[in-house]
């Protein structure tokens, strides 16, 4: 049967739907990590919008039109969601600004960037400020004392107060450096194991999953990239899962609902601009990201891997496109035609 495809909403409306779809995940983040999340997200959006205006002005483009497409807001929002909630304000805005300027405008603006701008900003911050970028608010303390309030968060973010009182490793980070504990022992000792994946993070991931499914249902993007990524990640984790020994890199569920997995699967690898073009290409793109995320998490030096995995696959996207060009109507099958 013929699958009937309706007219698409305008670009600005697509961006608005993406913003709405982040709300469940954002709510979960705020619930576990406090209002600092909101401050950081707001700062990231502000930084991205200012940089967008600056970039448009430098390039002599209409600032009103350029801001109207909403892409800068989405870039800032996605970066803000990925950053540690108590990151100093200056770093957040720097990251967001560089994401828009070095991730997008230097290539010629919206639609021209080979790399995902939010991930460019994230990667710059991660390699430049590794300590700040891996300092997360600690969940056990938060759950014991209630999440950091606005004043505390503000003091850390704006005034440079020491975040030590609130910080601790993320489950992924702590799990990676568990020093010979079996998975069951780690869960008992760290208190970070959560119900089925990682404390708090499992809910954050479920929130982003819900938003992603909404976008999928609204046909904002196709299923290929997210399903490819999640399937590849789960498959890798399943292959190397030994039931929970001291050297185990974690169960499939732990990886699917840990760290930035769902944010990445539905909000980052689905970026049409920096991804592959054809449905088959997007599937391959997603699978590549899934494999890289697992490899870096399990065997690499960083606890999470979304930014690097996505940037590496962004670089591979043009090649994937060349491989997966659809056969036009009335042309012989690919085996008979020449190399692209």
């Amino acid at each position, binding site marked *: 049967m*013929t699958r009937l495809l309706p007219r698409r909403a305008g670009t600005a*409306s697509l961006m608005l739907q993406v913003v709405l779809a982040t709300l469940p995940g954002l709510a979960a983040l705020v619930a576990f990590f406090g209002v600092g999340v909101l401050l950081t997200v707001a700062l990231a959006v502000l930084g991205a919008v200012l940089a967008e205006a600056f970039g448009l002005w430098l390039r002599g483009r209409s600032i009103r039109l350029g801001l109207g497409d909403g892409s800068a807001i989405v870039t800032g929002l996605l970066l803000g969601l990925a950053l540690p909630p108590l990151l100093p304000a200056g770093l957040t805005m720097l990251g967001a600004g560089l994401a828009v300027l070095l991730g997008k405008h230097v290539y010629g603006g919206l639609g021209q960037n080979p790399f995902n701008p939010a991930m460019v900003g994230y990667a710059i911050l991660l390699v430049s400020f590794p300590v700040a970028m891996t300092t997360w608010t600690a969940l056990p303390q938060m759950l014991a004392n209630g999440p950091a309030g606005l004043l505390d968060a503000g003091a850390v973010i704006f005034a440079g107060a020491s975040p030590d009182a609130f910080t601790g490793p993320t489950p992924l980070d702590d799990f990676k450096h568990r020093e010979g504990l079996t998975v069951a022992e780690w869960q008992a000792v760290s208190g970070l194991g959560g119900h089925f994946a990682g404390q708090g993070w499992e809910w954050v991931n479920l929130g982003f999953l819900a938003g992603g499914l909404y976008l999928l249902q609204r046909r904002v993007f196709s299923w290929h990239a997210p399903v490819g990524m999640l399937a590849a990640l789960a498959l890798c984790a399943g292959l190397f899962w030994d039931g929970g020994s001291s050297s185990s890199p974690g169960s499939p569920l732990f990886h699917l609902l840990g760290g930035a997995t769902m944010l990445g699967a539905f909000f980052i690898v689905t970026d*049409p601009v920096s991804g592959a073009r054809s449905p088959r290409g997007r599937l391959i793109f997603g699978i590549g990201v899934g494999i890289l995320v697992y490899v870096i998490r399990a065997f690499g030096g960083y606890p999470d891997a979304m930014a690097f995995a996505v940037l590496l696959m962004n670089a591979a996207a043009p090649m994937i496109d060349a491989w997966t060009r659809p056969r036009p109507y009335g042309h012989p099958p690919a085996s008979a035609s020449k190399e692209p």
Partner: protein
Amino acid sequence: MSVSDWDSPLHPLAQALDVPAGKARTRHMAIEASVIPELLRLPLELYAGRQAKPCVTVGQRVRRGEIVARGPDAYDAAIHAATSGRIRGVADTPLPCIELEADGDDATVDPEPLSDWRGHSRPELLTQLAESGLMGLGGAGFPSAAKLEAAASIDLLIINAAECEPLLTADERLLTERASEVMDGITILAYLTSARRVVIAIEDDKPEAIEAVRVALREHPFSLAVIPRGYPSGSERQLVQILTGRQIPSGRLPVDLGMLCHNVASAWAMGRAVIHGEALTERIVTVTGAALLRPGNLSVRIGTPVADLLAARGMNDTLLAGIRLGGPLTGRPVTDRRLPMGKTHGGLLAAGAEELTPAGVELPCIRCGACAEVCPASLLPQELHRQTRAADLDALAELNLVDCIECGACAWVCPSRIPLVNDYRLGKSALAAEAARQAAAEQARTRHERRQNRLEQERRASEAAREARLSRVDAALARAKAAKQNREQES
């Protein structure tokens, strides 16, 4: 299922565009006669930019059905007066046309039917079609006689009644009301092409027309294929694929695969031309759109200016987003309302904003891929867009721009409101210009090479002649020498 149903499995498009269901507005409206305007503009344009040459004089009185212009080729469709009146002259605006002042009598020439048409030769029948002004009424406007001349013996004749274009219901009404006349036309087509199989293809959202065809088919050996709705199922190449599973190779025609596609309105007109001797002076047009007060399916005289037709049906200018000759996706925008209705126009839209491809400020392409999803030719519309803007002709050729059928599905879905089809038309003409330039250069090169060869040959010939002359001289000298020696020995 009935005996007449197409029994090969269908190969529906994997995905197609879902267009708004605006056909409901006119689908149940019976065909009615339209106004005859005071001034008709009979278009002189023929297929592919060629023009018919007028064969009447200024001031001459003509009756309906009288030929007023002919094309350069024998099988070109003739142009007829669409009502009786006086030739005012030839005009170049809004397009090359003969202006005809109607006298209101609408007197018609005596028809010259070939009622015993099976007794006539193929060339006679083809001439009758050309003299009756027959061309493809589905949109391309290729002269019917020329198309049939090249298809003397085919395997499959496809009658295209898919009518996938949104809002238009002209073909649907034609089948609903005049199915048996359509069958007459198809019978002639099948005879002329010696078609072994004949199939009539209709989209499944037209139950009345389907029923009418089923009834009419009780007396005809043709089959009916009800195909799934989805734009552009009625495009020739897509329809061939849906019905047979085969794709027409790039740059070839259905006839190369032993198939021929004919629009259902053309088939009907063919029956009228042969059996009733009527020239093509009117066609059924769906006049519709959100800005039109009284939409309908009208029998419109060729040459009726858009303005007269719209005025007759009442237009609300405040709702008007654009006028289109044809459908919302492939129709031609009308900026000058003096433009006349031509033979290929099955629709006239006074469209509201929702009925047209979204216009407005073009935003950058975000490579969302919506265009690629709906492209029936499986091209990469966003890449084509990028390369047309970059004017990279090699890339455009590599991306198979020539295979674009300009169906407009990509622009319809584009969230950034990019007028993609305009880009492709520009790109195609750039490619054609480049090809022409290369052909000219190639021709100049061969001419030069031929000249070089000729000079070389002339040089060789003259050298050979000189050598022959020299050898003759040598031989003569030798003979003289020998003779001298002989003489010396004798003496």
